[in-house]
């Protein structure tokens, strides 16, 4: 009897829960008097360090737009409803949550993912259902898809101009070590392009699985090569242990990385001087000079006082929402094809935190400035040079014009006929 009554109590409480879920679903379905922005980011798990600030960028942008009264679309002034999910640093979650964004929340736009693997898991679901998708931190570039837009910098803005500078200032000989997955493999290809274009020479190129945390034999190898500088694409907590080990083993050759500091603000997480002598090429970090940069980090800190560091993710999350707002306004509707057309008409965010930013319609990637910083032995970031505004041209170079026809695939450096000679194996 006791068990039975307990069981019935359980069933009744469960049905209460289901009823509540039902109510929430109904509310969100009838909430189309608002524009729905659905975001999926890692708020827990290893990548929460990088991605939590991105959600701050989203929240700030949505608040600013809604405080100003919203956007005039489809005959009414509508505010943005922000639906945020935690992807838990787990690729499977991205797939499920992307579907939830599209079907349950009826999102007008989905912004999701940090790593290339998370991005692809979410993006495939979103674009298959003909919904606009944004990825808002640096990526390997080259994705040519009608529904996909990218606010962050690509190797065109980071690898090429920064390595050109490094080769000129330090010498041609470099070593490359990176994590063994699609993003760092692509970065490795872009490094080969940079070496080929600007007279560099890659003396060593190796890839490592994520679990590797003891680096002495690699440190020995690099010291044997004696490069003019090192290029890194080390990802995750274990890989980052390279830095204190290299420091302790006296490997002080300058290093360059587009994933360290910009994403994970390691200079605030490793005690100095582990990262001394590292060069990084962000499109934004809070140390970037200028009024827009200062204003942005001040606003983020006012809203989220616990912020450790305002990283690149925060800025490009913010920029993406601002760009969508401009596109909705320009299109006068949230209807997908009209909004894509508006985005392809070169939407600009002139006061973006990192400097003037423009989505290039033919590319679905953006033009933006890049900066080169050097970490000193107190872990202060010093601006070495401004690398200027770089236009994205890669997709044009491989013969794609997104405004005419979207091939729906990703292009990598070997696809560029002019760069064939840098990839003898292909």
């Amino acid at each position, binding site marked *: 009897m006791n068990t039975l009554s307990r069981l019935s109590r359980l069933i009744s409480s469960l049905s209460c829960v289901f009823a509540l879920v039902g109510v929430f679903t109904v509310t969100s379905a009838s909430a189309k008097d608002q524009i729905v922005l659905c975001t999926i980011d890692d708020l827990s798990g290893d990548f929460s360090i990088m991605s939590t600030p991105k959600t701050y960028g989203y929240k700030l942008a949505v608040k600013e737009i809604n405080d100003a009264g919203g956007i005039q679309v489809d005959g009414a002034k509508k505010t943005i409803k922000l639906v945020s999910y935690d992807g838990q640093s787990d690729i499977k979650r991205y797939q499920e949550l992307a579907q939830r964004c599209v079907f349950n929340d009826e999102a007008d736009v989905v912004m999701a993912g940090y790593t290339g693997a998370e991005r692809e898991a979410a993006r495939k679901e979103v674009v298959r259902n003909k919904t606009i998708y944004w990825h808002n931190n640096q990526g390997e570039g080259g994705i040519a898809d009608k529904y996909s837009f990218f606010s962050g910098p690509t190797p065109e803005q980071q690898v090429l101009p920064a390595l050109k500078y490094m080769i000129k200032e330090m010498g041609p000989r470099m070593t490359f070590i990176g994590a063994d997955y699609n993003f760092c493999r692509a970065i490795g290809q872009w490094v080969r392009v940079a070496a080929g274009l600007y007279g560099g020479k890659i003396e060593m190129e190796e890839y490592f699985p994520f*679990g590797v945390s*003891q680096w002495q034999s690699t440190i020995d190898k690099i010291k044997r090569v004696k490069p003019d500088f090192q290029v890194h694409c080390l990802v995750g907590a*274990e890989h980052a242990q390279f830095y*204190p080990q290299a420091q302790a*083993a006296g490997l002080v050759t300058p290093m360059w990385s587009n994933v360290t500091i910009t994403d994970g603000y390691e200079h605030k*997480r490793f005690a100095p001087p582990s990262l001394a002598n590292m060069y990084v090429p962000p499109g934004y970090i809070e140390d970037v000079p200028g009024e827009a940069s200062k204003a942005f980090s001040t606003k983020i800190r006012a809203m989220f006082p616990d912020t*450790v560091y305002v990283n690149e993710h925060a800025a490009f999350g913010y920029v993406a929402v601002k760009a969508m707002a401009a596109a909705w306004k320009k299109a006068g509707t949230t209807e997908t094809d009209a909004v894509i057309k508006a985005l392809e008409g070169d939407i600009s965010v002139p006061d973006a935190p990192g400097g003037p930013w423009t989505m290039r319609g033919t590319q679905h990637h953006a033009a933006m400035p890049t900066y080169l910083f050097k970490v000193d032995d107190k872990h202060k970031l010093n601006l070495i040079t401004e690398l200027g505004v770089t236009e994205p041209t890669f997709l044009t170079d491989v013969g794609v014009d997104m405004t005419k026809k979207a091939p729906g695939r990703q292009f990598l450096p070997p696809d560029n006929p002019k760069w064939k000679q840098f990839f003898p194996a292909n």
Partner: protein
Amino acid sequence: MDIAGQIASYTYQYFDNLGFLLLSGIGLIVIYGVMGVINMAHGELMMIGAYIAVSTFYAGVPAPLAVGLGGVGSGLVGMIIEQLVIRHFYNQLLSSLVVTWGISLIISQGTLLLLGPSIMNMPTPLGSISVGSFAFGVYRLVMFATALGLIAATWALFRWTKLGAQAQATMEDPVMASALGIDTRRVYTLTFGLGSALGGIAGGMFAMTATISPFFGQNYTPMAFITVVVGGGASPIVGLTYAGMYLAGVQTISSNLVNEYIGYVSVIAAAFIALLVMPSGISDFFEQRRIRRMSR
């Protein structure tokens, strides 16, 4: 070619790898050996040790003492967990796996909610030594020495103290031990506390070479788990040491012959082969041989 330096480098890497495996695994194997419980929350106890070590270090406590405090803190947390949860799951390998995994999720997510995604780690102390054209961080040798020290101390504790004798009796036959008046509950609580404290000290040591986050411990759990399983539960300390020596050897050789990728993969392959030959671990294998020899 700088031969002396190269040999020094191989030796250094071997002890570095060995130190890593022993430090990650020691707390885990003490608990497994005595209680038959695989503690999936071991990484989180290491994380707690790391957090305590770092916060006390930046509050002005000298690094070695800060690491010790990390051990004490983790030990206390471990005893609380044991009292509340683990004591319902003694010698139930599978249930204890699931329940400790749950605890690990609660602790890591709870830490994230309370303390945010990251804090500053401790600086790596002690600089480097050079052999020929090679240079090596001294701290990683200290990590190895600490691992040896902890193993020796744990061994001595089990060998020469009353608690150790009681723990060994409990390990052999818990029912008989309690019939003889040993408070096996207390033995279990103290053992779990000891294992947790060893994890906390290891966490504090790693806090000087790695970044620290609520998910810090999960970086060490897989390797610790492999080492413990290969070591086996019959004679925990000996098993752990042999397993560490074997796996570190394989890792060092293959890392240098090929690269770290192969080094990492070959540890898992080596564990696989070892378990094919000795299904219940190295120490069980030797124990069985000894018994067979004695019965002859």
